[in-house]
């Protein structure tokens, strides 16, 4: 989230698209309704009338996978009717930047941007660049009239997204589109704010990243980023998924969003040189310019005293990716299926149900030599070998089950979507033989280390040199129990030497050797500081020698009245509650909307060092004076090299502007936007005419699978349902796999509500109970009627034991992902539905 949960209450218009907060984030609806109480409008755009839609002021139905057509129409509407916030767009976004005149868009190149190579399915992004002036800064046209400026290119690109086109693609009636556009675009005024809430409904598409990009463009045009009640807000589907992503969950990022090095970045110097963004603009903060400090402090954390200047701080011991290697989920399972992976830890997950194309995943598990399933309960993954269509005697995989403690059985921090790290305490002791994850890792670490010490083996350094100081050691050298506070402190980081500010005379002492770091501003690239995750620096800190766990704070004061609650727990970075908040003020530092001032510049108030001028309110994106200050003023988007919000986004794999492409499987023959490219031209195909695994088959516009399908969660179950299916109260409410279908489709197929039906795709089939409802309606797409159905994915064959729950709807979903993130496209695919026999 750019903003935070409570901040939803400050919005004037809330657009829920690609999310279903009432069902999947029920607590958030408290703030949605607080906003509605104030008169805010809730817009819900969803293929299905959800429990969130039940609370909406405006509901628009939209065929799955057509968000960009929907939002593209909105961008056109905003531009055509001059509803954008010009002062914001000109000063805070790259709208005035002049782009390379050779850049061409899909309107000119029939569906693709300039630089596409059909063989590699990749773009050469040479033309997606800016025109530079003699100082090396991008050329700008503040009048936004230059035909090559981002603003004009945007206008040209979305001129193709007419109301008729948008309606024909999405199936949303034109009047509804206008109603939504008009309402949302009303937030383009300085005193009106709109927020967007999204989740997997946007990410799980072959155009997932671009869905979000489209909204980011709208929010920048309307001046809604950085504002209280604004932003583009990802509702994370798990209480600590923000925390785990921050701490390096994904294959390509180290903690703190530092890129995982590739093999070609041979040493730390090259890594820093290649991966540190540069700018020649003195007004750009370019915070990522500090990358060298963060990676060095990280290396000092994980390798401790073993990391020295002479050995490149142990950079060589970091795991490396091969150049261009993708180790994302779909690829992992593809490799596993092909027998290339020996062992697998399924830790706190249930891929046999959660993986798109779960049938393939289940087969892949049988190709392993061993698997360790760490979970609270046995699940479809741990028991895959005795699952449907498996012959236990033929499965070679040896499965180990390790019982894990639940979240209430251990102490530690969790970070929610608000980037808020909150400390939690152990409520009860772990049951039976279960152990907290950290204890399981501790065991694992010492046993693996011992093996390396005894037997040597290939490349033992990363393990042997790892610091592991999380508690008192027993006689065998093993840490007896993990002190989780030590881990939290390690993440925060330490001053390894006394630190002085040498810019002032006499040098002022900033940090004392051995103490916890106060802020990431103090981190150094010379090995004199350690920090396990730079964005968490300050979370567990020391003030005047006193150690303070900032995440354990519980003070309920709200000085701004905006619900920031700055002394409740701690938010990264540096307790900033609303990101890019410098965009919420004008060039002079005055809030666009004084009634909802996130920050404001007080030119007369003195800083602690006695200089006039301080920011009041939230922790600003840097203490620099407002942008109008020619000398010291800074741009608001500090994480971007050019300091500007990106309407033109050349960093993505599939184009600098979002373009509508149909899902891998769709009900129409060709993409109404461009005949040549039906699907995202940069999405990696696992299956094509040239070949591929039969497991990865897809059938688009095939009469055997005529209905659009989507998957979702329900309030009553969580993820694949492992926790909630074992919870009788939850199962009582939502006992069985179901499929929601419209009354019209039910009539066509002779299906009655409550009937058992079979839903099948090119890849698999599941049975489900038909829930015939008016909450699904056929769409009018390109002049024909298209039916859509939807299924939850929270059921699995393993529990309830009598099989009455059904099996995962991911047996139906395809193997394809977004080209930027490789998140699978489970939200739009094609199925058939028939009344079950017997």
């Amino acid at each position, binding site marked *: 989230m750019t903003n935070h949960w409570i901040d939803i209450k400050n919005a004037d218009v809330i657009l829920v698209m690609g999310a279903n907060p009432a069902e999947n984030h*029920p607590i958030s609806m408290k703030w949605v309704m607080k906003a509605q109480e104030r008169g805010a409008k809730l817009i819900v755009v969803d293929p299905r*009338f959800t429990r969130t839609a039940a609370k909406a002021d405006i509901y628009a139905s939209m065929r799955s996978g057509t968000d960009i057509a929907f939002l593209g129409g909105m961008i056109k509407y905003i531009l055509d009717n001059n509803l954008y916030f010009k002062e914001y767009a000109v000063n805070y976004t790259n709208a005035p930047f002049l782009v390379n005149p050779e850049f061409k868009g899909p309107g000119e190149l029939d569906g693709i941007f300039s630089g596409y190579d059909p063989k590699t399915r990749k773009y050469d992004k040479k033309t997606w660049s800016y025109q530079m002036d003699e100082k090396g800064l991008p050329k700008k046209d503040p009048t936004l009239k230059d035909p090559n400026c981002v603003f004009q290119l945007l206008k040209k690109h979305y001129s193709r997204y007419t109301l008729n086109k948008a309606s024909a693609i999405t199936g949303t009636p034109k009047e509804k589109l206008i109603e939504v556009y008009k309402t949302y675009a009303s937030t383009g005024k300085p005193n009106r704010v709109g927020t967007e809430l999204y989740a997997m409904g946007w990410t799980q598409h072959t155009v997932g990243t671009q869905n979000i990009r489209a909204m980011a463009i709208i929010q920048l045009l309307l001046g809604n980023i950085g504002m209280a009640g604004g932003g583009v807000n990802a509702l994370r589907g798990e209480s600590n998924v923000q925390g785990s992503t921050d701490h390096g969950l994904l294959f390509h990022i180290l903690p703190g969003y530092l890129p995982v090095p590739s093999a070609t970045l041979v040493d730390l110097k090259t890594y820093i040189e290649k991966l540190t963004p540069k700018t020649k603009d003195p007004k750009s903060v370019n915070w990522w310019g500090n990358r060298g400090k963060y990676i060095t402090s990280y290396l000092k954390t994980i390798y401790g005293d073993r990391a020295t200047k002479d050995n490149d701080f142990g950079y060589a011991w970091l795991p490396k990716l091969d150049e261009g290697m993708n180790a994302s989920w779909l690829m992992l399972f593809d490799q596993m299926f092909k027998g290339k992976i020996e062992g697998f830890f399924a830790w706190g997950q249930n891929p046999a149900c959660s993986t798109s194309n779960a049938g393939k995943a289940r087969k892949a598990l049988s190709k392993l030599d061993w698997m360790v399933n760490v979970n609270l309960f046995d699940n479809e993954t741990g028991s895959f070998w005795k699952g449907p269509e498996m012959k236990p005697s033929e499965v070679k995989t040896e499965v180990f089950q390790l019982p894990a403690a639940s979240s209430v059985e251990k102490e530690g921090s969790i970070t929610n979507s608000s980037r808020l790290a909150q400390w939690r305490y152990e409520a009860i002791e772990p049951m039976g033989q279960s152990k907290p994850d950290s204890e399981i890792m501790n065991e694992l670490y010492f046993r693996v280390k011992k093996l390396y010490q005894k037997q040597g083996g290939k490349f033992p350094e990363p393990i042997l040199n790892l610091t592991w100081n999380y508690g008192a050691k027993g006689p065998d050298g093993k840490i007896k129990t993990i002190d989780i506070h030590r881990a939290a402190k390690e993440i925060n980081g330490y001053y390894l030497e006394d630190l002085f500010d040498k810019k002032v005379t006499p040098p002022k002492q900033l940090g004392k050797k051995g103490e916890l770091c106060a802020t990431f501003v103090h981190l150094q690239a010379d090995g004199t500081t350690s920090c396990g995750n730079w964005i968490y620096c300050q979370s567990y800190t020391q003030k005047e020698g006193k150690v303070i766990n900032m995440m354990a704070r519980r003070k309920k004061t709200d000085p701004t009245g905006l619900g920031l609650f700055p002394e409740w727990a701690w938010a990264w970075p540096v307790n900033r509650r609303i990101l890019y908040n410098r965009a919420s003020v004008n060039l002079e530092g005055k809030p666009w909307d004084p009634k909802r001032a996130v920050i404001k510049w007080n030119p007369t108030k003195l800083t602690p060092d006695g200089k006039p001028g301080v920011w009041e309110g939230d922790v600003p994106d840097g203490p620099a004076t407002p942008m109008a200050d020619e000398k010291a003023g800074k741009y608001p988007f500090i994480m971007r090299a050019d300091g500007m919000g990106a309407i033109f986004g050349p960093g993505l794999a599939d184009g600098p502007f979002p373009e509508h492409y149909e899902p891998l499987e769709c009900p129409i023959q060709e993409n109404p936007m461009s005949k040549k490219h039906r699907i995202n031209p940069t999405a990696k195909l696992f299956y094509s005419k040239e070949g591929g695994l039969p497991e990865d088959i897809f059938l688009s516009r095939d009469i055997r699978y005529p209905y659009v399908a989507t998957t979702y969660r329900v309030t009553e179950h969580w993820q694949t349902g492992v926790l909630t299916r074992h919870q009788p109260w939850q199962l009582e*409410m939502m006992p069985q796999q179901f499929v929601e279908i419209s009354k019209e489709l039910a009539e066509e197929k002779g299906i009655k509500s409550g009937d058992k039906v079979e839903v099948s795709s090119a890849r698999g089939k599941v049975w489900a109970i038909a829930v015939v409802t008016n909450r699904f309606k056929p769409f009018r797409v390109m002049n024909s009627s298209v039916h859509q159905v939807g299924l939850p994915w929270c059921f699995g064959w393993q529990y309830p034991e009598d099989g009455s729950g059904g099996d995962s709807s991911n047996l139906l979903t395809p193997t394809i992902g977004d080209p930027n993130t490789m998140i699978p496209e489970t939200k739009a695919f094609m199925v058939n539905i028939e009344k079950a026999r017997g």
Partner: protein
Amino acid sequence: MTMARKALMISPELCIGCRGCQTACKEWNRLSVIKTRNTGTYENPPDLTPNLYNRIRFVEMPSETNLVRWLFVSQRCMHCDDAGCMKICPAPGALFKTKEGAVSFNKDKCIGCKLCVVGCPFNIPRYDDKDKVSKCHLCSDRIAEGLMPACAKTCPTGAIRYGDRDSLIDGAKKIGYEKVYGEKDLGGLGAIYVFKDAPKIYGIDEHPAIPETVVFWHKVLKPLAYLSLGGAVAVSLLHYVAFGPKKDEGGEEK
């Protein structure tokens, strides 16, 4: 010492159908489950059970302005001031009012006659496998300790609020609800609702009333039972005084 009457204020407009209340209730009251199946709706279990005190009904209605209207309505004991169940109950202490105004029950005192079932205008009481009454008791154990009922505590959106009855009603009127369902009915309900539309749209009886026969019984037959007996005895006595026993003339009975 009198205590301000407590109540639950239920606002279906704020309810998102998450059913946290349904689970919280079961958790606090340690209630077991039944084996359910999906019958073509989210609503489950299909009815209140002795182990389901509070249930969210999912009501799909046609809408003029939208694709459909989907309402979520909590079904539970209304904690009537003039409670039909208590009125008809023959066993002292089986159903009782707490000082907060909750209609609570004591299974040890319940005699399993199920008269409360027919006395209730809302069809709420259920009987467990030991034939004892079972229903929402406003978490009388929690509220006695100054805590909120589990459902209200859990509700994320304020669709179920707990507090002083009067201030809940005032609050609802302040935010524009002209009518509060249950403000006056049955002596005033302890679970009051605010509706945007007619209660019947939400599947709730517009004018809930204790069955007339029960009222008649309570108002007339019950007092008559004493009066009749007393009357009969009095008439006999009067007669004896006025006329004395019938004596045979001659009195040769000796």
